[in-house]
């Protein structure tokens, strides 16, 4: 009986160890990591880097695209986020990570068209070499990374979805990104720092 107990204890310990040491195999940032800067081409042809924004307090880096139905469903909400927070020092920086040879609708020319149709007031950058999204660990569109500019660099504060209802903006109960930015700007802890959502896989 004692042996049985010991064995059970051991197996529990091993099981827990297996759980806790399960490495976060996915590359990319975790909350609290410092995010890399980049230099990517904007739809106006100019290169954009985070370091260009001297007075920014942070950034909403949003990996998105023209073609994904979820990205399209969130377009107006992305525009609204920029309208609301750019003036407070947290602009939206949209990045299209898709390979246009796989998804022709996400070509640079199509990006220009979409941005002008929707009147994007924020940069819409093209991750042409597909080197930036893997560093961030973006897996889908839309995928949001909230960064806070600190002395140590641009620290990742939130990763995930914009809110909890892609279907209907009026039915949203949790505005994850807004809550995160509000807390960050108020110097408070962000309650929900990561969320999951179905999205379109990034086309490589």
């Amino acid at each position, binding site marked *: 009986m004692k042996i049985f107990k010991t064995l059970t204890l051991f197996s529990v310990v091993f099981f827990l160890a297996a759980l806790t040491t399960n490495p976060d195999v996915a590359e990319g940032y975790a909350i609290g990591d410092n995010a890399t800067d980049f230099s990517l081409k904007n739809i106006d042809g100019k290169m954009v880097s985070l370091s260009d924004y001297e007075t920014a307090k942070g950034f909403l880096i949003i990996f998105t695209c023209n073609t*994904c139905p979820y990205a399209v469903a969130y377009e107006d909400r992305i525009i609204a986020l920029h309208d609301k927070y750019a003036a407070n020092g947290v602009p939206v920086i949209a990045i299209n990570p898709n390979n246009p040879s796989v998804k022709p609708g996400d070509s640079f020319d199509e990006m220009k068209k979409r941005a002008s149709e929707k009147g994007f007031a924020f940069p819409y950058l093209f991750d042409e070499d597909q080197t930036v999204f893997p560093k961030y660990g973006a897996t889908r569109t839309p995928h949001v990374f909230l960064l806070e500019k600190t002395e140590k660099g641009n620290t990742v504060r939130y990763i*995930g979805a914009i809110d*909890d*209802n892609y*279907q209907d903006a009026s039915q949203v109960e949790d505005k994850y990104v807004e809550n995160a930015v509000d807390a960050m700007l108020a110097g408070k802890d962000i309650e929900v720092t990561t969320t*999951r*959502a179905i999205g379109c*896989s990034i086309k490589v």
Partner: protein
Amino acid sequence: MFSQRGYKFLLKDKGRFIHYLILKCSKQYMMDLRILIGLCFFGLIGCGSSPENKRSEEVADSVIAEAAEVETASMLDFPVYDFDAITTLLNKKNDTTYIVNFWATWCKPCVEELPNFEKTFAEQKNNKVELILVSLDMRSMWQKRLVPFVEKNDLKGSVVILDDPKMNEWIPKVDQQWSGGIPATLIYNSSKRSFFEQSMTYEELNLELRKFIN
């Protein structure tokens, strides 16, 4: 069950006109409306001459068309679930092995891997294997894309629709490791489960399936 859900969905989310009607209507009135829509619908079937897609194109904006769209889906056996309702499908305890594939018609890698699942299902269904194809297509796509897709490709797996926007709540309940990317596949039976957030080749799928059925 479906028509009940479908009707709610019709009331809740389709055109403002319906919404307006519902707000204005008493319960009795709603029942009348339901009967009216039902009658209109059966009237449409009665004709039986115009092809389905054409029909929904022709009258796409009318109330009747909305009802017909929903009901046609039910005729094609696409139950619509929220996550609570679909939970039983993900946790059956019997002697069958279930392959549950999360996909959508807009998801290219999903569509590309579907033949591997259909082929495997055809070969293995006598070994007590079931294929459940959980569509994450959006409501606007059910009639326009999902129904024609399933018909065109003559899918033999059981197509069900998961219609639940609270993704952050239900994704981890399918599997703790799932980030939300599709395609994703759950293979389970009464004694074990495996989850794959990736495309699967025919060989990969069979390799994993053999761990369940042998």
